[in-house]
Every structure is written in C-alpha cells, then in structure tokens.
C-alpha cells in the first residue's frame, strides 16, 4: 500500500514531502526515544511519534523513513517543518492517538484480506 492511500484512509494532514507519497509502505515503527528509533526502525518505515522537536527529521532522514506521523494533532514546531521541507520528508499529522494510528496502519499493510482495506 502506498503512503497516499494511508494518508487518505486515516485522514492525515500532510505538511511536507507531497511528492513522496507514492512510496510503498511495508512496515512502521513507533516511539518517542530517538535512540530507540535509530536502533530499531527500518528503512522505508512509517514512523509514528508524539515527538515534535526538529531532531526527528534528522532521524527519519538518516534511517530513510518513508515519513513521520505526529499523533494527537501535535503541531510540528516551525524548525521541524522547515527541516522536513528541506529534506523533503513527508511530515503528517493525525488527530487520533498513537494507538489508533498504529492499529489502523498495521491492519492496512499487514492485515492481508480484503476486509482489512474497506476503509469503513
């Protein structure tokens, strides 16, 4: 499933990296501790976090993440958004909690069967 479909189904607000939404999402990671994300996330992951500081962009860039989803309607700090635009990394915001965001994405990309992608 590509990132654009996830954006649509989860109703994410996209702040940057609009031209990178065609990337296929195979997995993801969730966490607010940057060292944890550095060590355990994988290239191409979608990263779900509540951390809004600009250093998340460096981490996502170093790990070649497909994008970052900030949860609970967290507004990205201005410096964070500037860096996301500069690095052209999709920075997205969900109004939902991390639990709900991760649960939905997991079902979409790992759920398999047709019933998982109805979007109802």
């Amino acid at each position, binding site marked *: 499933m590509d990132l654009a479909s996830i954006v649509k189904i989860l109703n994410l607000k996209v702040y940057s990296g609009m031209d990178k939404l065609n990337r296929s999402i195979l997995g993801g990671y969730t966490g607010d*501790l*940057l*060292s944890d994300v550095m*060590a355990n996330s994988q*290239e191409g992951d979608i990263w779900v976090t509540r*951390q809004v500081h600009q*250093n998340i962009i*460096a981490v996502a860039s*170093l790990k070649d993440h497909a994008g970052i989803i900030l949860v609970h309607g967290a507004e990205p700090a201005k410096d964070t958004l500037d860096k996301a635009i500069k690095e052209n990394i999709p920075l997205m915001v969900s109004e939902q909690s991390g639990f709900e965001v991760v649960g939905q994405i997991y079902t979409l990309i790992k759920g398999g069967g047709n019933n998982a992608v109805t979007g109802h």
Partner: protein
Amino acid sequence: MHVHEKPIYESSHTVEGGNFDEAGKVASQIKANLKKVGLRKDVIMKAALVAYESEINIVSYAKKGMIQISVTAEKVNIEAIDEGQGIPDINLAMQEGYSTATSKIREMGFGAGMGLCNIKKFSDLFQITSEIGKGTHLKMVINIVNGS
C-alpha cells in the same frame, strides 16, 4: 597498526556542544559521503548510527568535539573525541537506561541511556576512554569485509 591499509576516504567534522538545533548534521554529512564512496548499504547504516549517537553525546555533554572517519577496503574507523565533563563510571554509563541527561535533553527525545549501548551494538569493535574534566574518546570499527 594497520599502516599498510590505505584509506580510500577520510574526513573530520567538528561538533558544537549544546547546539541541539544542528544535532545530526555531521551524521547526515558522513552518511552522504559514504554513499558517494559506494559502501554497502548495511555498512553505511551502521556508520550513520554510530556517528549519530557519538554526535548526540558530544552535543549533550561536551563543550565541543570532533568526529573523524577513515575508510579502508576492510573497515570503517570512526573516532569521537570531545572536550567535556568526562564519564566518572564507564561501566555505569554503558548500562542501558542509565543516563545523566537533564530534563531539557530528555524532552527532545534524547538521554534515554541508549546511546553508548547502540554504538557498541552496531560496531564490530568499540573502545571508550574518559578522563574527568577533560573529555571522552570513543573508537569504533565497522567491518566491511566479513560484515553481515
């Protein structure tokens, strides 16, 4: 040691202590340079992680520091040398979860007590020496040959 191993790439980067806005910049430069050198992706990812955690440590705990990298056909050598407070108890500092980070550092997602552990985990060789009031010196090697 290894005098006959000619480096195919070398660089040296200064890191400013306390400047969290620029934290990660040196690691990004190193990653981009190693891509140009044409190293394997897994080697680049390990080197980027090791450089990143070293950089964050300097930014968090030192006045200033330097990250040096040298690549031979066999390995990537990374050294992080800082002028800082030093580490009183290295065994304690190497314990996952142990941290002396301030709340300001933790609020930004750093200071989880994982940095040195990550460096050790992603390096094939890791050496740390530290002197109180002077600074800390990290030496890491990532194997290219026989790496997995």
